[in-house]
């Protein structure tokens, strides 16, 4: 019997540990940002201040726009920030733990003649694991592109979805005196003019599969649809039917385009092949039908129509040609843009004398306004990952291009002052 008793006592010892657990519910993280230390990239050989600063500036801006991070103050960095050691065995994780960061970015660059090698790593400070590491081989001058690429990799490592920072924006600017097509990086750097039509160029869209843009131009005295290969510069007219050939938008696989054609009569939405031939007429209505935008699955198209009086957003099913109305509020809703994730349709609506950007789900629920600042906002377009929206702002007679997160936060101006920049379009992933 004494043995039973001793067994009981032993059991009782384990009791408080195993039997009676206290239940705690934590229903939000302490902070909704990841504390990250972004160290300056160090030279692996000859040092150039330019390369390090450029990489640093790009990573800083991209990571800030992502909204994911709280970047640790550099003044607090300890000796490990000055050490090139990139391998996990060389990183002094204890120092970074002391600083309270969850992750650290370390990197180095080497310049060898014209060649540039950049090595960048993202470490989990807590688990001391490499989250992502890349070695980039390029040329001097590629620093910005490489830094954008690595920012995309950081996003991939920490969210499971690549960032859009190494993609491009096309837009229309009057900096040359005419409305011409331009291309720039997603942070507004390195603008390049692509057209020299000296006429009116409008409403660009990127091919999702090739480095190519479509746009409308009055070059040949009619608003025709053009396409242009960005890197060869070769240009061709895709649709030159009398009247409007506008609003060209590629399907997500690049196989077809939706377009507004008026053919000298009332405007309707059509599907074109990549050779410009008409595949299908989607709307047949006496009202105005313009501004098509594809669903990511390519089975539906959102567009603007005044068939019920005021301009509103409608959705047409490509197979059945059944048209359903999406927006009901307000008196003027326009320029729908379907998110690549399929979750939202962004559009503009006139409120109190100005246009603002709204989001609505494709089933008509969840409508909400994103922008509130003074000035008219137009042409919202999603980033290829669906995280950001780019749009043009018309404020005090100056038109500029802005970007924000799809919850309306993080808004910032991209285009340089003094221009008249409108109609942004976001490319797909660029590489």
């Amino acid at each position, binding site marked *: 019997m004494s043995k*039973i008793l001793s*067994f*009981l006592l032993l*059991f*009782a010892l384990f*009791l*408080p*540990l*195993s039997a*009676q*657990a*206290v*239940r*705690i*519910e*934590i*229903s*939000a*993280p*302490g*902070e*909704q*940002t*990841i*504390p990250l230390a972004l160290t300056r990239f160090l030279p692996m050989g000859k040092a150039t201040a330019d390369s390090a600063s450029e990489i640093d500036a790009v990573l800083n801006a991209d990571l800030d726009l*992502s*909204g*994911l*991070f*709280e970047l640790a103050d550099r003044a607090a960095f300890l000796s490990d920030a000055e050490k090139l050691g990139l391998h996990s065995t060389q990183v002094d994780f204890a120092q970074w*733990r002391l600083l309270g960061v*969850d992750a650290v970015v370390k990197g180095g660059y080497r310049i060898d003649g014209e060649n540039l090698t950049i090595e960048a790593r993202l470490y*989990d400070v*807590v*688990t001391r694991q490499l989250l992502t590491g890349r070695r980039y081989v390029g040329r001097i001058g590629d620093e910005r592109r490489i830094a954008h690429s690595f920012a995309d990799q950081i996003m991939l490592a*920490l*969210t*499971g979805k690549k960032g859009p920072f190494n993609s491009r924006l096309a837009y229309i600017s009057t900096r040359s005196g005419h409305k011409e097509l331009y291309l720039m990086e997603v942070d507004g750097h390195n603008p390049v003019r692509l057209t020299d039509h000296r006429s009116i160029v409008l409403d660009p869209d990127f091919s999702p599969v090739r480095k190519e843009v479509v746009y409308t131009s009055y070059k040949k005295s009619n608003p025709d649809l053009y396409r242009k290969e960005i890197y060869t510069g070769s240009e061709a007219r895709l649709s030159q039917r009398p009247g409007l050939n506008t609003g060209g938008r590629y399907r997500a696989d690049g196989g077809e385009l939706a377009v507004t054609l008026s053919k000298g009569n009332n405007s309707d939405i059509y599907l074109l092949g990549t050779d410009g031939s008409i595949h299908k007429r989607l709307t047949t209505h006496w009202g105005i039908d313009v501004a098509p935008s594809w669903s990511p699955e390519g089975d539906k198209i959102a567009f603007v129509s005044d068939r019920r009086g005021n301009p509103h957003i409608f959705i047409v099913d490509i197979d059945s040609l059944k048209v359903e109305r999406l927006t009901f509020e307000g008196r003027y809703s326009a320029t729908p843009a379907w998110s690549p994730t399929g979750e939202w349709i962004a559009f503009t609506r006139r409120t109190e004398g100005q246009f603002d950007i709204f989001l609505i789900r494709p089933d008509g629920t969840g409508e909400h306004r994103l922008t*509130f*600042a*003074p000035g008219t906002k137009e042409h919202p377009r999603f980033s290829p990952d669906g*995280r950001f929206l780019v749009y043009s702002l018309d404020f005090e007679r100056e038109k500029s291009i802005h970007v*924000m*997160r799809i919850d*309306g*936060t*993080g*808004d*910032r101006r991209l285009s340089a002052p003094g221009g008249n920049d409108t109609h942004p379009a976001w490319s797909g992933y660029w590489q």
Partner: protein
Amino acid sequence: MSEYYRHRLRQLQKLLEPGLRRMLLISFVLHLIVPLLLSGVLKSTHKTPKVPVYRVNLVNKPVKDPRAGRPDASPTKKKKTVKKKTVAKQIPLKAKKVPVKTKQTVKTKPVVKKTAPVKSAKPDKVAESSLQKRLAEMQAEVGRKAQLDRLRAALAAQQADLGKPDLQAPVGEPDGKGEEAGISSSRTVEGVITKEWRLSQYQLPNLDLQAEVKVIYSAEGKMRTWEWVEKSGNAQFDDSLYRAIQKSRDLGVPLPAPGTFEIIFNLKDLQNR
């Protein structure tokens, strides 16, 4: 006597498998413990008055400037988001100004620690009781969930069973025992782990995620062990919890007693925004 038992055992052995016999034994032992616990034999005779308990969440701050960059990010808007939070959170905020609050076990805040003896050094008995009254009223307002109450009661019972609470506990009831101490350990654990849990909603496809871990802390506030009870299935969410747990290996303060904590992580507070 033993002959008789041996005989019975042999009889049983013929009927049953040996494994089942072992299970029967364990079952019998377990059944023996239940009435033992319920009878209150192990309970200390000392009766502690029921002290109202308030949640002070100094760690789980609302997200930094949630509408940053938006023109509508006005102070009035911000107030609104605070109001949306549970009432339970608001009450402690008010209670901060009351001296009695110093009895709260906010172990993670050394500042409070230092001020505690000064403020409660000369407690006016009348003022004290009136304050207690007010606090009791406030508690009634709070209207805690019934389940939480049951959990607390169970915890208190357990803490009492485990003998004298730690008198070295930096902040707590003046006499360092009672329910307060029991609650404080879960508050401490919750506070530290919440603070170490960093996760951005931009990392997640949706906010409908939940995971559960079991953590065992020693009385010194050191993590003995932990395990997943249930993962959310989302890599980013689970990784963030892994980091939070790793960073909470040392609570930095001792607990009144060692304890096992089953912690449920979800994003309910973010969903309501």
